């Protein structure tokens, strides 16, 4: 086995896992606290990428663009909460799903109107565009290491926020007892709007980080959203820890599966069959994993205690 390749693919898996975590954490926060199912969460991921692309060309610097695009995406999330999502809290999950399904069409088309149908590539500053030799003979793009670092830092920040801050306490209280928080005189509407905005920022950040690799493109959010759903189903909907563990698990299994399942199959069946079945199975791997976990734990790995 090629250990250099294994190492690189593990890093890639980690990177995918952390990007998934950024998307899934927002999804799980919004569901856990607001009890709101947001299909359009992937559109915020896409909008983050596009806003960042425009700002990169405007400011000439990707990092400045990210710093500016984050509050912009957050503000967008705030507005969405204020003008649409808020009126859906009293509705059932089916209505959430349908309304945000419509919202996806609206946001995708607006993006098309503003940025045009083609994807937009985002240029990186030179010092991020290179490669680093992390082990002898194993080179990794610098930017991928940055993604991993940002992902880990955000995860740490979120754990701190949820577990050790007043906002986090309110967030956890809001999750378990909405009326109680309201009775304590805390403006729950603002709290909810802030949580939604935070979720939007997290999804947007993931989009900004991925765009220099893949381009910002319409519909980019519609693929990752399903994988993010798988992540939070596996992890337990509403659980931050579950989102983190689930995201890394899914990221690693998906990446490693795609690169090594052919070889694995070749151990058991003839290579022709392996090459046909390999891609089909590797694409299905995370869903099979999801099914297996659900068969044992219908509430996911870390089911939230309340609810």
């Amino acid at each position, binding site marked *: 086995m090629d250990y250099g390749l294994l190492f690189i693919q593990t890093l890639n898996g980690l990177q995918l896992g952390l990007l998934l975590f950024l998307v899934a954490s927002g999804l799980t926060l919004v*569901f856990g606290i607001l009890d709101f*199912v947001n*299909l359009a969460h992937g559109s915020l991921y896409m909008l983050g990428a596009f806003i960042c692309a425009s700002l990169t060309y405007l400011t000439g610097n990707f990092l400045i663009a990210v710093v500016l695009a984050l509050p912009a995406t957050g503000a967008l999330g705030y507005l969405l909460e204020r003008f*649409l999502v808020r*009126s*859906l809290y009293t*509705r059932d*999950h*089916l*209505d959430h*799903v*349908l*309304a945000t*399904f*419509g*919202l*996806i*069409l*609206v*946001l*995708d*088309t*607006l993006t*098309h*109107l503003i940025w045009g149908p083609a994807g937009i590539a985002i240029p990186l500053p030179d010092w991020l565009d290179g490669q680093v030799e992390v082990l002898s003979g194993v080179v990794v793009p610098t930017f991928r290491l940055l993604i991993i670092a940002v992902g880990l830092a955000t995860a740490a920040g979120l754990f701190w926020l949820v577990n050790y801050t007043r906002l986090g306490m309110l967030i956890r209280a809001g999750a378990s007892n909405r009326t109680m928080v309201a009775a304590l005189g805390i403006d729950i509407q603002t709290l909810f709007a802030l949580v939604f905005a935070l979720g939007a920022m997290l999804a947007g950040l993931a989009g900004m980080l991925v765009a220099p690799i893949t381009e910002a493109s319409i519909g980019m959010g*519609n693929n990752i959203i*399903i994988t993010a*759903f*798988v992540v*939070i*189903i596996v992890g337990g*909907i509403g659980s931050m820890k579950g989102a983190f563990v689930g995201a890394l698990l899914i990221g690693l299994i998906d990446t490693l599966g795609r690169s090594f399942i052919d070889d694995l199959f070749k151990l058991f069946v003839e290579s022709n069959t392996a090459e*046909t079945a390999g*891609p*089909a199975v*590797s*694409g*299905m791997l995370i*869903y*099979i994993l*999801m*099914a297996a976990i*659900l*068969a044992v734990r*219908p*509430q*996911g790995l870390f089911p939230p205690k309340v609810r």
Partner: protein
Amino acid sequence: MIGFGKSSWVTLAIMAILLVLPMVFYWNGNTFYLSLATRLTILAIAAVSLNLVLGYGGLISFGHAAYIGFGAYAVGIPTYHVFYGGAEGIATTNGLFQFGVAVGISALFALITGAISLRTKGVYFIMITMAFAQMAYYMFLSIEEYGGDDGLVIEVRSKLPLVDLDNPMELFVLSYVSLVVAMLMVRTIIHSRFGMVLQGAKGNNERMVTLGYNSYLYRLVAFTISGAMCGFAGALMGNFSSFISPEMMAWSRSGELMFMVILGGTATTLGPVLGSAVFIVVEEFMSSYTVYWHLPFGLMLIGIVLFVRGGLMGLLVGKGR
């Protein structure tokens, strides 16, 4: 619902229009509307099947487009092998075989994924059905032999006794008759003892369990029936479009199917049909005006969720969910 109330007359009237209008257009030389009506009718079958679980069972399946895909590939793959060799065992253009496989495979997929999904509830169920459909989507996407994401052209339509599917009018009539049969089937099921249990479990599952019903099994059976019916619609769809691609199974397609049911009115006989009709006609109308039609369309969807309770049937006969 029993006997001939207002909704029954509305149902009959709209079904009559759906039958006659496309024919009139067709005989006046306008084939486009017949084609539109055929597509609409086929999707209506899928919506009717979804309504069985969504409307009467309260099970929000977000993965029904997968069955349309299974049904279509059940036509496409045997036909492909007739033309390009390989897999002698299944290479055939025999429609009875293809439709049989479409129904069988769909039922099997529904049975397996349903057995897992139905252990969960609420938002888990929505997301899991969605994820399983996406799994099927990726599976077909990665099978290069059948075109991957480029899709697969169906060289000849299914060979069936009595009807010639190459004749657009006969294809339409077959689809229409299938739709009527599907509507009657669902109607019969929901009024049966089985249907009463299914609806009871939607309204109050705890009560049904306390009465001694294993509601899991009843739901699984309903889910399987629904998947099988939807697979049949998929086989028709394959014949209608003569082309299949994984895109037919994408989750946005499942979302559209759900919307048709809600738009028309859940848990009504005509609702899903009405919803499909309005959905397809509006989509066709808007998309002919602008490439940006998804914008008004999306706004319309949001508006319907916010302001139209009980769907179009609710507006028409004052009866909703």
